[in-house]
């Protein structure tokens, strides 16, 4: 691939998006605080946004930007409701560890 000083191969953007997505998955599975798990989900959504914008550049159309905008809006709505749910869980269980919210297990 041609790498001059003023152009970046598109595959590098997609690779960065994949790395960020993998980091989001790692955080989602590994961490035990509910809020940090939620933030890993946001990291995954951001990685996907980067993919959308990169492909939109390749196809020279703004559709990818529109998708990305809608993803942002849905993420904002999800953050609002999700954080309200977290507040309710905290009020009822007094804990923020996802391992301890297990009263419906078995």
């Amino acid at each position, binding site marked *: 691939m041609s*790498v*001059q*000083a*003023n*152009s*970046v*191969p*598109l*595959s*590098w*953007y*997609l*690779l*960065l998006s*994949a*790395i*960020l997505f*993998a*980091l*989001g998955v*790692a*955080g989602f599975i*590994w961490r035990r*605080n509910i*809020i*940090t798990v*939620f*933030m*890993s989900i946001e*990291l995954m959504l*951001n990685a996907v*946004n980067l993919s959308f*914008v*990169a492909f*939109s*550049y390749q196809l*020279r159309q*703004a*559709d990818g*930007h*529109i998708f*990305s905008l*809608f993803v*942002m*809006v*849905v*993420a*904002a*709505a*999800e*953050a*609002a*409701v999700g*954080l*309200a*749910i*977290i*507040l*309710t869980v905290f009020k009822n269980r007094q804990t*923020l560890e996802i391992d301890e919210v297990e009263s419906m297990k078995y």
Partner: protein
Amino acid sequence: MDLIIFLICSVIAVACGINLVLQKHPISAALSLVGVMGSLAVLYLLLGGAFIAAAQIIVYAGAVMVLFIFVIMLLNAGAEPAGRKRSYARLFGPPLLAIFVLLIAYAIQARLPRSEGVQFGRFTGGSPEGIGIKVFTDYLLPFEVVSVLILIAILGAIVLAHKEIR
């Protein structure tokens, strides 16, 4: 110049992402996520998405993450205590993730044509005009549906956080 900015921003993004996964305290993790969003905004600018970059900072980093930080401060979430050793996750997790990334990288390299690179200024359709035209002609229905979705989310959040006055 594009290459230098891309390298700096991607290194910052990956470093903040790793920091998000490794930090014990939720506030540090939240600020790392803000760092990721900031560097992604610069990358969007390089890809010609001026409006998306501004929307990322205004909406995502400036409102959604502030909401996260509020909740962390209100709930007084402390640092995560050291947990029991889950050896499976620690042992197999990072190698599997690395394999996942390598697979994706291979798929990208195999499928993508290698003709051109990304240069700042070559794509101008991401300006507010371009986005505005697209949103209000091709994507008008999704736009309206998404606004109804936000209304539902607001109602849901209010109902959930409402204190019952007995």
